């Protein structure tokens, strides 16, 4: 069946789904894969600006679905990678303009020519999420080490399992190692204890992520960035490489329970 459809979801908004999607897309392309990223957040598109492609949009997802544009016409090629494309969301429509079946049809067409089709799911558990979930072969759930985000992740994991797409894999985003050491933040182990799904990535808090979104150059292209390296490691795990999580906690004893496995090197 060719390419693999990977959906990035979270339940809660603002945890870093779009940032994760953009960076995984870039990293996978950097690993030599042919990649399409689809912004499924119709009405609130953002993947285009995170990737720095907002000026090139002519057609969008709804144009494809409603037949105003050929698939290829709506796909925007990335500036740096010849095999990385974006299908932007429509900005003036709502989620009902696209159905889960439409997404299956679209991704089936893309599978023939691409290795990975990443879908950036909107927040929430309604139609937009259903659209993003329906064609998925694998689901990555982005969460922050924080009560409300983990709670919403749990709900999403339940829905993914109910749809037989589960259990999904977890990306813990914006982890602050110093706070975890002080006992003032949930550790990745805590989150794993609570949610019980495999962790595929731990992304440290990194100011460079904001600079990256300011400039529209995803952080994984910045070799100085730990978050960027961590996203790159997630991409390598997605393609099946066995990449170890780096252990950042060097002081044994008091914090033994909070042994922090931090990915990135």
């Amino acid at each position: 069946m060719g390419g693999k459809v990977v959906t990035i979801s979270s339940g809660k908004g603002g945890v870093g789904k779009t940032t994760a999607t953009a960076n995984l897309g870039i990293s996978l392309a950097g690993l030599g894969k042919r990649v399409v990223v689809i912004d499924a957040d119709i009405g609130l598109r953002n993947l285009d600006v995170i990737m720095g492609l907002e000026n090139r949009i002519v057609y969008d997802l709804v144009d494809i679905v409603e037949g105003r544009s050929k698939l290829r016409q709506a796909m925007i090629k990335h500036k740096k990678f010849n095999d990385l494309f974006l299908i932007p969301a429509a900005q003036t429509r709502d989620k009902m303009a696209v159905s889960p079946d439409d997404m299956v049809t679209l991704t089936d067409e893309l599978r023939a020519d691409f290795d990975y089709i990443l879908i950036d799911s909107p927040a929430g558990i309604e139609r937009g999420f259903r659209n993003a979930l329906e064609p998925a072969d694998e689901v990555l759930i982005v969460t922050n080490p924080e009560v409300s985000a983990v709670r919403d992740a749990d709900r999403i994991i339940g829905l993914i399992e109910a749809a037989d797409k589960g259990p999904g894999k977890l990306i813990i985003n914006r982890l602050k190692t110093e706070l975890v050491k002080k006992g003032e933040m949930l550790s990745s182990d805590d989150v794993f204890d609570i949610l019980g799904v495999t962790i595929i990535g731990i992304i440290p808090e990194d100011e460079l992520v904001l600079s990256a979104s300011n400039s529209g150059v995803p952080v994984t292209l910045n070799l100085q960035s730990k978050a960027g390296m961590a996203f790159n490691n997630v991409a390598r795990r997605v393609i099946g490489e066995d990449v170890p999580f780096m252990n950042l906690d060097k002081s044994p004893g008091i914090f033994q329970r909070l042994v922090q496995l931090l990915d990135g090197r």
Partner: protein
Amino acid sequence: MTNLWSRLFGRAKKGSGATAKDRLRFVLQHDRINLPPERMEEMKREILAVIVKYLVVDEDRVEIDLEQRDRTHSKLVAEIPVVNTTNAGARAVNSPAVKADGGYANGASNGAAAQKEEKSTSVDAEVAEPIAGAGDENTVAPFDDEEKDAKA
């Protein structure tokens, strides 16, 4: 609830991360079975009301709790201490249900309470409860028999 809060406050010195974990566990337990804490308390009261119709229960020591087995299964665990009433001549135990002076009990446990004794027996109940797919709010999943077998 008071128990929960005192527990959380007790742990607060460990740092807010531990508090977050406790609160998450609590909230997810109820999210996953789609039964909010208030309704859960209501259910406990109803369960107890039924048992009290038949047995003399040491109500102060009743514990009915939800335990998480894994993502999709929770377990309702109840420990309900029952006062043995067959031996005559024993004095009253300090249970509200049977406290009423010198052998006069409330309507529910009537005559039996006249002959109660301090020794109590526990009724342990463990009900495995498969959670219906988290998406289907009101689906009632069939009772999972292998649960019970696994316990044995």
